[in-house]
């Protein structure tokens, strides 16, 4: 009977299995200094995840937490822009690559910091791009792993992951980390969003990823002049948290200054903490902070 692979010990000298284990160990070693790891996800694009993540980071940092933000959207990175660190030079030391520091000393790492200026797309060098669909996702997973293992995050109270659209992104990150504390699901009050987000929620459940709750972003339009809040979407009367079976963690109304602040690289909640939207963001941060602190005490 011919030999099978398992009949032969080792792999001839590369020891690939040990290398894979070592790569995982490097991630675990780096992440051991991070108390909480929280993903901000949606499954749907255009719901304002990145801006919400930046504001949430600012609220938590403002309450004294040591906060990091990792932009896991490699193809559409925006955290560097939203947190005002675009174009910053990163320092390399024997500890690794040091993330950029944004407002309130929020540590930021984003693919945007490595790409040439302008709207440079993420392209991987290869002799040929033919058949790149075979290896591209694997390359991106490796890049994410390197972001985790080779960034000198230091001691953090929380590391927020801004995930790209797409249902499989959250389970993939959870698998890479091994100990993701949970995910915050973001939607907007529209049936289209609810459909896409619903699929992501179900996939996360199938992978046993813990979902902390739902945030309804752009829930109403806040007039920057009179402060009144009106409907922005037609489906405002529905209750997506109930439909998706998640605890509701907050409803954040949209107002134009949120977008303007993001373009300037300054979190809205720092400039406008007392508006309805500012208060909603602060309340969301406080809820999350309490949730994560309580869980931390229980560990």
């Amino acid at each position, binding site marked *: 009977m011919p030999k099978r692979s398992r009949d032969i010990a*080792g792999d*001839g000298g590369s020891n690939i299995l040990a*290398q894979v284990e070592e790569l995982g160990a490097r991630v675990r070693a780096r992440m051991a200094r991070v108390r909480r790891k929280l993903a901000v996800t949606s499954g749907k694009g255009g719901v304002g995840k990145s801006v919400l993540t930046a504001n949430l980071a600012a609220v938590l940092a403002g309450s004294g937490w040591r906060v990091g933000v990792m932009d896991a959207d490699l193809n559409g990175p925006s955290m560097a822009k939203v947190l005002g660190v675009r174009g910053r030079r990163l320092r390399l*030391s024997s500890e690794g*690559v040091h993330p950029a520091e944004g407002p309130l000393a929020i540590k930021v790492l984003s693919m945007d910091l490595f790409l*040439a200026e302008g709207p440079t797309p993420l392209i*991987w*060098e290869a002799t040929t791009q*033919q058949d790149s669909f075979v*290896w591209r996702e694997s390359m991106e997973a490796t890049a994410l792993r390197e972001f985790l293992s080779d960034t000198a995050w230091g001691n953090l109270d929380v590391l927020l992951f801004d995930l790209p659209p797409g249902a499989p992104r959250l389970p993939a990150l959870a698998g890479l980390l091994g100990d993701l504390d949970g995910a915050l699901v973001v939607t907007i009050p529209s049936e289209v969003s609810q459909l896409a987000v619903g699929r992501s929620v179900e996939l996360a459940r199938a992978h046993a990823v813990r979902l902390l709750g739902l945030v309804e972003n752009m829930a109403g339009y806040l007039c920057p002049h009179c402060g009144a809040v009106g409907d922005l979407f037609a489906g405002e009367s529905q209750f997506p948290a109930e439909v998706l079976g998640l605890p509701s963690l907050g409803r954040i109304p949209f107002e134009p200054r949120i977008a303007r602040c993001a373009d300037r690289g300054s979190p809205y909640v720092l400039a406008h903490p007392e508006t309805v939207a500012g208060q909603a963001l602060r309340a969301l941060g406080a809820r999350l902070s309490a949730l994560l602190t309580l869980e931390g005490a229980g560990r």
Partner: protein
Amino acid sequence: MKFLCVGCDEPMRIHSVEGPEQGSVSVTFGCPRCSHRVALLTNPMETQLVRSLGVKIGGHGLPPEPLEVLSTALGSQREGAVEAAGEEGPVWAEAAEARLERLPPLARPMARMAISRYARERGVTMVTPELMDEYRARAGF
């Protein structure tokens, strides 16, 4: 993937790894009993697939450089995106500096730090192209 010398019924071991050159890596395996050799040649897609995994064929245990895959495989890199913190290190020969400059911008500070550390650990005071070759062979593909 494992190779068996059918005549000897003996697992073959990696003898050498060369490349990638024009998208192809050549991995030579030898039978420890009869010394028969075979070479595995990858096509560009296979080379890229292995590269994307972040593992090294024929690696010999040197720790990977920070962001090793990203810094060598990312296209259109920003010049000066990463700068190395000043460290006491070996002198770099002009030819070694020139060779370093041929690397992608992100890979330069990573490689400088890793090769300087490699030199320091061996008591070498000057980094030369030969030392860079030695490092590369140890680091594997």
